[in-house]
């Protein structure tokens, strides 16, 4: 079956068995291994992707159902400026200060091993709050949180819990995950209310790279 759907903002065409799991289509056929398999039964949420912005378990989703839909995986998370690699200022990796990895203060709140992509506020928040340990649940967790914040920018704790109730984590105890979502929500609200000087619409994501909090 020829599948045509929007994947992380790009129109994608791929030939696949209709009953191939979307999880396997992403990981094995399209090489996007950010989405993980934790249980294969829709019981853990590690395989969460967004389908038209809504979280679903890709281990339960036959590839045929992606036809004509809008799919977002963790690889598709962008900085708020909407560009895939965030490089708006002409340098190779969007570094603001001319240093190799763009760390604004050198000591940086996150030190990247290897090239440092511009991070979505949720990704920044998860790092800053210590909400990542082994990282296996993280892609699914972040996507569930993104879906929540895209629809409800100012959720209370109960709403965050409900939105993440289908994502299991065995490492963190969840407390810092809640804090990370709250932080990202807060940053988003602040950014929406007060765009900084010299940053036009949509630059708030880049503003946060390397920034100390």
């Amino acid at each position, binding site marked *: 079956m020829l599948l045509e759907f929007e994947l992380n903002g790009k129109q994608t065409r791929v030939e696949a068995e209709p009953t191939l799991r979307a999880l396997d289509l992403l990981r094995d056929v399209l090489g996007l291994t950010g989405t993980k398999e934790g249980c294969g039964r*829709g019981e853990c*949420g590690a395989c969460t992707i967004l389908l038209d912005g809504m979280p679903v378990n890709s281990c339960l989703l036959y590839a*045929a159902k992606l036809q004509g839909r809008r799919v977002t995986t963790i690889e598709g998370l962008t900085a708020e400026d909407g560009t895939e690699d965030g490089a708006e200022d002409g340098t190779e990796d969007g570094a603001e200060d001319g240093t190799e990895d763009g760390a604004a203060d050198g000591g940086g709140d996150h030190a990247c091993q290897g090239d440092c992509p511009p991070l979505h506020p949720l990704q920044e928040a998860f790092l800053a709050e210590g909400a990542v340990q082994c990282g296996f649940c993280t892609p699914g967790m972040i996507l569930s949180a993104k879906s929540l914040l895209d629809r409800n920018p100012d959720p209370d704790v109960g709403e965050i819990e409900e939105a993440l109730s289908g994502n299991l984590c065995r490492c963190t105890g969840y407390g810092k995950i809640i804090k990370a979502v709250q932080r990202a929500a807060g940053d988003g609200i602040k950014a929406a209310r007060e765009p900084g000087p010299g940053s036009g619409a949509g630059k708030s994501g880049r503003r946060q790279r390397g920034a100390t909090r």
Partner: protein
Amino acid sequence: MQYLRARNLKQALLQAAEAAGERVKFLAGGTDLTVQIAEGALDPTLLIDISAAEELRRLERGAEGLRIGAALTIAELLESARAAAGKPAESASIPRCLLQGAAAIGSPQIRHLGTIGGNVCNASPCGDTLAPLIVLAASFTLRSPRGSRVVPAEEFFLGPKATVLEPGEILESILIPVSHLSGRSAFRMIGKRNGQVISQVNIAVWLKRGRSEGAGTISTPIEDIRIAAGSVAPIPLRLKRAEELLRSVIPDPPLLQAAAGAVQEEIQPISDVRTSQAYRRSVIASLFTDVIGEVLEREGR
């Protein structure tokens, strides 16, 4: 395993009819089906995907009642209720016990993919929409190449994962009659933990109070009541003896307690990997007390 996508209901039925000798399964969201296929519990040779069929995804309030398309996802059902909140009663608002049952299903991920029809046709005794549909006197419209028939929810389930659906027959829609859109209803369930829970036991109640003569509703009799429980028998169970105790009476604490006792006696729970028979029998009385308290006290819808 072959896969066909039906553009509409008619095409789905045709595809099924033409698939002589195939083991056919209709696919909506697939949250139950894909697992059963992967585990080898089901072995269809043809899947007909009906999730795109528009007529199976309608939610309409008409003269006969509220008609819910079987392929409506659980999340869409909940979302439409949120959208309808505050709107006039004639809009497609959904009875509370069904919303509470739907909200109790799995996780957001399951709710965004799974459908109400899927929950019904999977016919797991712990399905969270089943007891609500029974107390709402819902009826199911089944379509096949031979025509259509209507089956009351109570008669639809035959056993765990078994229904009256014949090969090639689809659940098209669920009707909640206008008579049961009024009144009050509620649902409770309990599981091992707080999040992403499978019901160890669940219970739904719908009732209608008589006309009030004095102040408040406390002193008005229960005109009609329906009680059903899930995960307490091979099928979702209507609890008629408990209903009898409360029908046409003015509810008072001793009566409610007796009804709770009747609920406990009437269910036929077993011990399984989810919990013990004893816990089911004990906790259902508590859930019943909670749920009946909600329908009796609550003002408004």
